[in-house]
């Protein structure tokens, strides 16, 4: 696979990360309650700890996966051809279907696939946050239910980054750019709150774009699956 395809894959992965809705949703609830109970300055401070919780989780997960794959490759296991590629593509197609049919619940609201009891727990937890530690913990917790949607992406991203050998665009810069885009939606939500937009206005904006988000999310997974499986087809001359 060339540098261009690797770049396309990495861009798609970061875009999927930016379109996922659970963490931004929990962040919105948390920021709303923080603004309702604390001063704007304290709410901003707590919000930074929430973001740190999310970032730490993603970075730690990414590093774990990176070292597992590194270990596998050191032991001469092939991950870029044959069965692993078919398996990952199959998972991505399944996730594309999931994103289209089940990621959002039916109806006009932004209710996600998570059980309603869990959604209520997030609401209760977000409402009671008073310390930085708890804000950090909520950031960590908000990433967990979507792990089945993100772990395949981290695996693919790791493999692509390991293969990356373009001297004009060093790997660390690539990783940094990827993380920046993934967190883009959280920072965007924070900017909206800071520029005096409230929970109702931001949620209405999300609702207006719900269908777009759903279609793009499933399309990104599907295109990603195609990009990964395509070299397998060309190998057989199809």
């Amino acid at each position, binding site marked *: 696979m060339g540098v261009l395809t690797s770049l396309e894959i990495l861009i798609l992965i970061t875009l999927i990360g930016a379109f996922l809705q659970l963490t931004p949703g929990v962040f919105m609830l948390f920021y*709303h309650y923080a603004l309702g109970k604390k001063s704007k300055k304290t709410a901003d401070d707590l919000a930074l700890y929430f973001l740190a919780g999310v970032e730490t989780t993603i970075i730690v997960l990414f590093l774990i996966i990176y070292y597992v794959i590194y270990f596998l490759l050191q032991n001469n296991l092939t991950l870029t051809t044959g069965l692993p590629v078919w398996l990952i593509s199959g998972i991505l197609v399944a996730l594309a279907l999931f994103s289209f049919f089940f990621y959002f619940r039916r109806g006009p609201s932004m209710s996600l696939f998570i059980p*309603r009891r869990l959604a209520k727990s997030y*609401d209760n937890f977000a*409402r009671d946050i008073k310390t930085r530690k708890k804000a950090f913990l909520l950031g960590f917790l908000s990433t967990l239910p979507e792990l089945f949607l993100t772990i395949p992406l981290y695996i693919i991203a790791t493999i692509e980054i390991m293969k990356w050998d373009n001297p004009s665009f060093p790997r660390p810069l690539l990783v940094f750019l990827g993380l920046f885009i993934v967190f883009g939606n959280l920072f965007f939500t924070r900017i909206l709150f800071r520029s005096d937009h409230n*929970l109702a206005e931001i949620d*209405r904006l999300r609702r207006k774009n719900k269908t777009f988000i759903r279609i793009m999310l499933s399309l990104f997974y599907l295109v990603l699956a195609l990009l990964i499986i395509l070299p397998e087809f060309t190998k057989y001359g199809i």
Partner: protein
Amino acid sequence: MEYNEKDLKKLLKTDAKALGIPSGAAEIFIERTLKSIEKSLKSKDLITESDLTRLVVRELKKYHADLAYVYQNRDKIV
């Protein structure tokens, strides 16, 4: 379900502050909303959670659409 006016008032005040509604104005229309709800509940022995939500939202909409929206959709954000 059991209707708890104190909890509802606290919740609405938090939402109002988060939405940037001036505290004086918020106090007035939250009081009016609660009075109206109390009046409606006098004729009922029992009320379901969804009925209470509908009642609160209907009253709040008269004063502040965003506050009504947040109250109605808090469990539908995620």
